């Protein structure tokens, strides 16, 4: 026993010596691998039981409730309620993405031309909102956008008159864009900072006007950042529940609210889960696009809370 133990120990040291160059081979290597695989077991189990399993249940329910078949999907693709909600969700998510892109681009560009210190502060300022709970920020927007709120009071005092903000798609877009801004700024910045700064002056020295130099040289080079930021924001916007339900109109529910309504309100489990599967498919498709187009990872801390 002792001898074998010693032998494997020597083997192990030899393996360790080679470990940097390639994969460990032999029985000890496999035992090592399975031991390390075992370390992932608790996380694997928790995620399988309380994440993957519920998602599988959603998929199963969508084709079995009230009976086996695709009638729930048929409903999703023909019901005016679901189609209207899909359209609302798509339009709002797209507008939020565009608002974020237009506002984040100049900010991210400024980040590339300031000092390291200022850039640190700019990064922090854009991340600060992420420290505040989504519910708290939505509550603040409820106060600001309400009919008797300060924004409307201001509009009336300068003679614009009353503008309906809360319970409109505009109100939802304002709240969502604020929350999603960091998810646009960061990928944009990382893409813009990798562009060779002398290219634009070079184009100008060859006779291009500043705007032409920007649109012909700088903008095309920033495409990866634009894609990954936009798709991230778009996917997250599709799944938002809290903001639309507090700032939006109950007459025009976004997809997640419609899912909630079908499941808890009408007890239409099949329809609700079918809507959920469609939302999931849309998110996964967008995710596939972002990894395909930009070859970059996709990390969104706390994304579910929106």
């Amino acid at each position: 026993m002792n001898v074998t133990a010693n032998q494997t120990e020597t083997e192990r040291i030899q393996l360790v010596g080679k470990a940097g160059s390639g994969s460990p081979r032999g029985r000890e290597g496999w035992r090592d691998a399975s031991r390390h695989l075992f370390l992932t077991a608790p996380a694997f189990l928790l995620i399988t039981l309380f994440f993957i399993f519920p998602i599988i249940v959603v998929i199963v329910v969508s084709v079995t409730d009230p009976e086996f078949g695709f009638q729930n999907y048929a409903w999703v693709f023909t019901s005016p309620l679901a189609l209207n909600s899909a359209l609302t969700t798509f339009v709002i998510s797209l507008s939020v993405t565009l608002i974020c892109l237009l506002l984040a681009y100049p900010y991210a560009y400024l980040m590339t031309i300031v000092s390291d210190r200022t850039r640190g502060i700019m990064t922090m300022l854009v991340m600060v909102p992420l420290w505040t709970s989504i519910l708290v920020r939505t509550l603040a927007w409820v106060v600001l956008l309400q009919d008797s709120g300060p924004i409307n009071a201001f509009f009336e005092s300068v003679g614009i008159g009353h503008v309906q903000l809360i319970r409109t798609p505009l109100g939802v877009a304002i709240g969502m864009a604020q929350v999603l801004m960091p998810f646009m700024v960061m990928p944009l910045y990382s893409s813009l900072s990798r562009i060779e700064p002398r290219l634009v002056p070079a184009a100008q020295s060859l006779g291009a006007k500043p705007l032409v130099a920007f649109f012909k040289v700088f903008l095309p080079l920033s495409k990866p950042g634009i894609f990954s930021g936009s798709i991230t924001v778009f996917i997250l916007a599709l799944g938002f529940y809290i903001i639309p339900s507090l700032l939006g109109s109950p007459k025009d529910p976004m997809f997640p609210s419609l899912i909630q309504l079908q499941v808890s309100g009408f007890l239409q489990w099949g329809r609700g889960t079918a809507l959920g599967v469609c939302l999931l498919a849309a998110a996964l498709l967008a995710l596939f696009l972002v990894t395909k187009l930009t070859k970059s990872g996709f990390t969104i801390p706390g994304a579910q809370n929106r």
Partner: protein
Amino acid sequence: MRLKSVLSVFAVILVAWLILPTLVLVPISFSEKASFNFPSQGFSFQWYENFFNDRSWVRSTVLSLQIGLTVTAISVVAGTLAAFGLSKLRFRGRSLIENYLLTPMMVPGVVLAIGLYSVFLQYGLLGTFAGFVLAHTALALPLVILNVGTSIQGLDNRLELAAASLGANRVTTFFKVTLPLIAPGVIAGAVFAFVTSFDEVIVSLFIQSPGLQTLPVKIYRSVTQDTDPTVAAVAVLVTVLSVVIIGIAQSLTGRKRKARS
């Protein structure tokens, strides 16, 4: 240079739009009148008193803190083990397992919420402490794995080999060498785990029971039902708490980083 100053003005406005709106809740939480109107009138602590005297608010807060701490403990242990195990794996299946463990970050919350609701309904976990903890842990784990994983990547492999060659076994090496070196990632993971659980609304809305509501659920219900400024006071307290937690975490991890370089 003219471009830079135009952009700076724009950046200031953008930052103001990101940060200032939340601050309207501060005066409302100190107002004398029971309304959400801004600017508020008068000054009083009554809404804060209300919060501390109302048993249902206090109970939700304590429940959320208990759930958050339990979730943090479980997900830090399970997540660190997983990240460590993954970092040692050298075969093709590794990225497959890694992606599997990170999927919860990509799925819309409401889809998971109806799934968990259905599963919990069947197994009697609705509105239970264990139910909240398990659901929140599944959401928090990927963040821990990601943060710890990043710091393990920056780890110099030779330090572990040196410890092993000096006779330390795996467990000693892990606790004496690896863990102190990846502490910033573990702390960041712990903070994200706690904040994820403490802020989680959508899943909690589905799996709550009237008797057991987490703080965000209670806040949501309060916002949808009445205009009681107590909720503004709660919002201010929650915000201060999260800023303090993240500030502490940042100064801890920042110091660690400085000490190493």
